[in-house]
């Protein structure tokens, strides 16, 4: 489904601020894989996401989607293949547009936009149906401006908008990190439900170890632009948070001290 071949990315090359963000990463994501990625700040998780999404382009290496090379395809064109949910609940929706208008924009992710009305009555029925699956009552507020919704509601809507058109790849960038615990739990539950129902190929960045252990069939741990630990299948299912912490300290012991910051950060 998604393939990263020898990706290398350096920021500020040739200056004192030079930083190797991604250090020759190879990754093969199979159909219906659900991968969680953990790692400390600056490990390269977000850079990796940006390279997959086309916001950044690798210095070396290729990105393939369904065996098609998309390395140099700009972000907006690559969006046809993927749905994305961001950490900031404000980032995934347009605040001055109504709920149904936002959904219409999301609906057009895979279609060329035309001069037809964005919200037709048949689409409205579809949107209503989809909103009902969230169980938040948003289906009764189709014409409300999204800016009026709470952070949790907006993030749930973002998740729906990213997924209801069945993207080939779903990218979740710490999408529960900015929410309070109960809202975060709701979004996590919805994520699990939607990904299972639609059999979506998913990659999720998280700082929540419990979440990383609970969700998905594969886990990657990143540090300094490299994948330093990986588990899949049965090994992943048996994995617990202490195991993960153990792995983390093992990797860190060859040099840097393990601190709260690297764990939580």
């Amino acid at each position, binding site marked *: 489904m998604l393939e990263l071949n020898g990706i290398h990315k350096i920021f500020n090359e040739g200056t004192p601020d030079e930083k190797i963000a991604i250090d020759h990463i190879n990754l093969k994501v199979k159909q219906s894989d659900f991968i969680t990625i953990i790692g400390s700040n600056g490990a390269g998780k977000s850079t990796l996401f940006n390279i997959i999404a086309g916001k950044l382009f690798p210095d070396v290496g290729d990105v393939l989607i369904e065996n098609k090379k998309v390395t140099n395809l700009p972000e907006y064109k690559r*969006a046809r293949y993927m749905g994305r949910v961001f950490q900031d609940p404000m*980032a*995934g929706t347009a605040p001055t547009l109504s709920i149904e*208008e936002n959904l219409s*924009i999301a609906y057009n992710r895979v279609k060329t936009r035309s001069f037809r*009305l*964005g*919200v037709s009555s048949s689409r409205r029925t579809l949107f209503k149906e989809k909103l009902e699956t969230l169980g938040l009552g948003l289906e009764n507020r189709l014409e409300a401006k999204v800016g009026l919704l709470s952070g949790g509601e907006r993030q749930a809507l973002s998740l729906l*908008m990213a997924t209801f058109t069945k993207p080939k790849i779903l990218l979740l960038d710490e999408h529960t990190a900015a929410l309070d615990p109960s809202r975060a739990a709701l979004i996590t539950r919805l994520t699990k439900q939607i990904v299972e129902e639609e059999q979506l190929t998913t990659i999720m960045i998280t700082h929540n170890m419990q979440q990383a252990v609970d969700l998905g069939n594969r886990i990657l741990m990143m540090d300094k632009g490299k994948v330093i630990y990986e588990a899949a299948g049965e090994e992943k299912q048996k994995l617990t948070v202490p195991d993960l912490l153990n792995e983390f300290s093992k990797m860190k012991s060859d040099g840097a001290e393990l601190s709260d910051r690297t764990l939580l950060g």
Partner: protein
Amino acid sequence: MFTSIFSSVEVGLMFAIMALGVYLSFRILDFPDLTVDGSFVTGAAVGAILIVNSTNPFLATALAFGAGFIAGTITGVLHTFGKINALLSGILMMIALYSINLRIMDAPNLSLLQHDHIFTKLNEAWGNTGIDAAMASFFTSIGLSDFIPKTWVIIIVMIIFVLLIKVLLDYFLKTEVGLALRAVGDNHLMITSFSGNINFYKVFGLGLSNGLVALSGALIAQYNGFADVNGGIGMIVIGLASVIIGEAIFGTKNIVRVTLAVIVGAIIYRVIVALALRVEFLETGDLKLITAVIVILALVMPQVIAKQKEAKRKKQRRARLAG
């Protein structure tokens, strides 16, 4: 008095088209586009030179829209592909257009008085209907003979035309392309992640915005009977004034309401100017100053009113708790 207000409504309706263009760039795209000062004159110049050369005035006005559209897209390209700051790309285009407008007209100003333009054509067609005479006798019969305007044709045709543009714009902003355009001004990250090419929408939106501005310029030139290369100075402020006045009065609940607000705002602005100019110590040259003051008032007054309301609410709340 009535005649001057009547004609400011006529002019206000024409400027309303420009204000809708400014609304598109300023509010919808969130792009402070100063091209307007130049593209307004471009519209006037293209319309005027074509009319002077005996082109059909309706075609000439449509082509003026096209010229403005092109000017807007160039500003858009400077900003998106040239990565020039929004304000600066507008200013650059405005300056460039000054020279281009001079080239188009081949003179600092062009008179249309000897030529057939939209309003002479409309007057001809209208003259046969006898509606003006009927209205005149009606006004005289109710004892308002002082209030008879020269003709009703301009105001009626302009109301229909402006409303038509409004309805088309309302519809457009609800189409798939229109929604994407609105999202560009709202949230770049979001529309990009849903396959929207923000560069394309910015260029297209600025084209449309300046097309409307130029259309307005062409109409104003024909109404005034001349096109002047300096006719666009401060146009962006007038457009903004209309948008802000309209929004302050009607609110921004939905697109249909805001576009109407902008149109009425443009008319109110003209009426305020007409009334201000009747004040004894003010001269025609003070127009720009008056405009600036109106915009400042329209921006500051809502804040002052909101503050007063809040103070009143707190006072009542305190009184209730104390009592």
